């Protein structure tokens, strides 16, 4: 499952420099295509399902420095790519 969004994540990295003009917003990516940026996660997800139906797509917040999330308890390695 770790590679399910590999194409979309590559597209994000390729467009990151230009996307940073809208830092904080959520980008919607399907394959090699950036479909748009949205003010909230919910809006990006909604448009994602409208445009991509049940095909893979990525919703990601645009950040110059990737936010890291913390867990005080250990998580099994299955979660980690």
């Amino acid at each position, binding site marked *: *499952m*770790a590679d*399910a*969004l590999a194409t979309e*994540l590559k597209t994000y990295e390729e467009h990151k420099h230009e996307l940073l003009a809208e830092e904080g917003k959520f980008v919607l990516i399907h394959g090699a295509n950036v479909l748009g940026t949205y003010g909230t*996660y*919910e809006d990006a*997800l*909604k448009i*994602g*399902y*409208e445009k991509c*139906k*049940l095909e*893979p*797509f*990525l*919703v*990601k917040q645009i950040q110059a420095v*990737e*936010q*890291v*999330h*913390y*867990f*005080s*308890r*250990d*998580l*099994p390695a*299955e*979660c*980690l*790519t």
Partner: protein
Amino acid sequence: MPHLTLQLGPAGPLLDVIIGVSAPRQTALRQAGQAIPTPQIARALIDTGASVSAVDPAILNVLSLSPTGQMMIHTPSTAGQPHACNTYDIHLTLSHPALSFYIGALPVIQSSLHHQGIQALIGRDVLGNCLLVYDGRAGIYILGF
């Protein structure tokens, strides 16, 4: 603020939540003529040490979810090096006969939790919209939303 007063058990502040596919995915499934997976009741631990919420893979598998995001996480065993982790969009209902709180679209990570007697962690992403009071002396906690 409406709130629940619940008992603290040996495992901490637990409550049952309802987890299903997100509201946008429900719409997509309906338009594709596919069945919407039945929402699942999960035993959840309120975990202020988790910055995002997590769900056991057994629940996510029943909901037939695919990842729609990825985030970086640190745990005690990642040794200072953050790891990428897929996220899945769900809807979450904190449910109680007296009160309920619904989030239509919430990104969560997958983590095997069932061996701890729970199936979900409610992290600070959800708690950011709540009031939480932990009264260890009285053996209760208060959750307002």
